[in-house]
């Protein structure tokens, strides 16, 4: 019956899922009426099941459809590996893997999407993987630097942070100087390399393009695009990593946890 109205197989399946789901929600309603107290569990299970199975479908779609999609899967795996690497630099900081993962995925992922959308990175494996990995590797390095500096700053200023808290400061306000120091320090290499671009060094992408016979100005502009994307990825990743971490080094009662083993 439905096939008369919906010709696109995906839309048809979605409508079918919707109807089947509504039937299941009738069970939720029954449970509520009969006071079975299973509404919450069933609702959560339904929504979760739907989300999980659709995600699996989308991943399979990517893999089956075209090789470019595999590129995104590979990049996702690389992001996880990158997060693990930079979390190792965050020894002693709580929840480091998750914080690195969030900041690397959001930091490099967003720039990667923009780059693909404006055509800076071509949608083919040979472009996506190398340029994408370059971006996320830079995000990873910056996150590592930022974690390392942030931990050092906090441990060196435990007394000042306690003093600020005891004066009624929020955790954020108490560690703000060290958030700033960590972000700035982690970005120094990126800013310096952008500043000295072309004067001190001619970086890899441009060199490769020149050797490959590209127009020098085009090669130069492309290199600038890459460098500014690297700066953006680094800044986003660093800011996210430090801000997310700065919340986790305090208890809900706004007490500093990260104290270097002293009591």
């Amino acid at each position, binding site marked *: 019956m439905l096939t008369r109205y919906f010709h696109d197989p995906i839309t048809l399946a979605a409508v079918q899922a919707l109807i089947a789901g509504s039937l299941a929600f009738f069970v939720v309603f029954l449970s509520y009426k009969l006071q079975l107290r299973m509404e919450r569990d069933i609702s959560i299970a339904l929504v979760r099941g739907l989300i999980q199975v659709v995600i699996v479908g989308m991943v399979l779609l990517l893999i089956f459809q075209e090789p470019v999609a595999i590129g995104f899967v590979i990049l996702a795996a690389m992001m996880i590996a990158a997060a693990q690497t930079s979390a190792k630099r965050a020894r002693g900081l709580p929840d480091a893997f998750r914080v690195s993962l969030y900041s690397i995925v959001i930091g490099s992922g967003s720039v990667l999407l923009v780059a693909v959308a404006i055509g800076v990175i071509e949608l083919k494996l040979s472009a996506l993987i190398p340029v994408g990995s370059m971006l996320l590797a830079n995000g990873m390095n910056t996150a590592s630097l930022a974690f390392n500096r942030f931990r050092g700053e906090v441990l060196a200023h435990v007394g000042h942070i306690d003093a600020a808290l*005891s*004066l009624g400061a929020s955790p954020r306000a108490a560690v703000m100087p060290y958030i700033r120091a960590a972000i700035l320090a982690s970005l120094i290499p990126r800013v310096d390399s952008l500043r000295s671009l072309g004067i001190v060094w001619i970086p890899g992408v441009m060199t490769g393009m020149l050797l490959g016979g590209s127009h020098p100005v085009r090669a130069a502009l492309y290199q600038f695009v890459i460098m500014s994307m690297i700066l953006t990825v680094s800044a986003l990743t660093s800011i996210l990593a430090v801000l997310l971490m700065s919340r986790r080094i305090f208890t809900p009662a706004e007490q500093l946890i990260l104290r270097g083993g002293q009591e």
Partner: protein
Amino acid sequence: MSEEPLLYTERLSRRVKERFLVEDVNLSLYAQEVLAVVGPSGAGKSSLLRLINRLDEPTHGTVYFHGRDYREIPPRELRRRVGMVMQFPYLFPGTVAENIRFGPRQRGVELSDADVEALLERVGLPGYGDRDVSQLSGGEAQRVSLARTLANEPEVLLLDEPTSALDEAAKAGIEALLREILATGEFAAILVTHDLAQAGRLATRMALMEEGRITRTGRTEEVLHAYQILS
């Protein structure tokens, strides 16, 4: 002292890795009084003050402030009303005035130049507002630290060894200043010190702390006497 205490602790304890830093402490602090907590170093005196300021979390027991369990009071409000002066001043980089303005600014209050100057006069540093904190002596820095806490208009002052990091001359100056400020009766205070003579000069009541526990409380002379017999 029949009235309700301003603040009291109830079986206040903090245990870290099987060791009690503070164990089952029951202490009361009444309005306007100065309670000295004395005892050997490592007895848990500073840990006790940190618990009362809720810079650390009790593993057992709690503190009541104005009859209310302090875990129900937002930490920032509690810490403003129960101010703490630490052993080291821990001034923030910048000018003296910026340090004084720090606390009120956290709740959106901006002190005027006249407010800042009044606080500086109170701690014996008139005209110091524009000085950079890196230029201050140890005693001056501790005075700024005290003014910074007073800027929050606390009801209780927690004084954690406020003179022990200072040389003799500065120590006498800070002690005289504390005596003057405490004599106004604006604050109730808990003074942690290992200097018994200082505790005797500043406090009205005394508690002896040993190995995390309060072993004796009473009038200053009584506790001093007992402590001297013990040690």
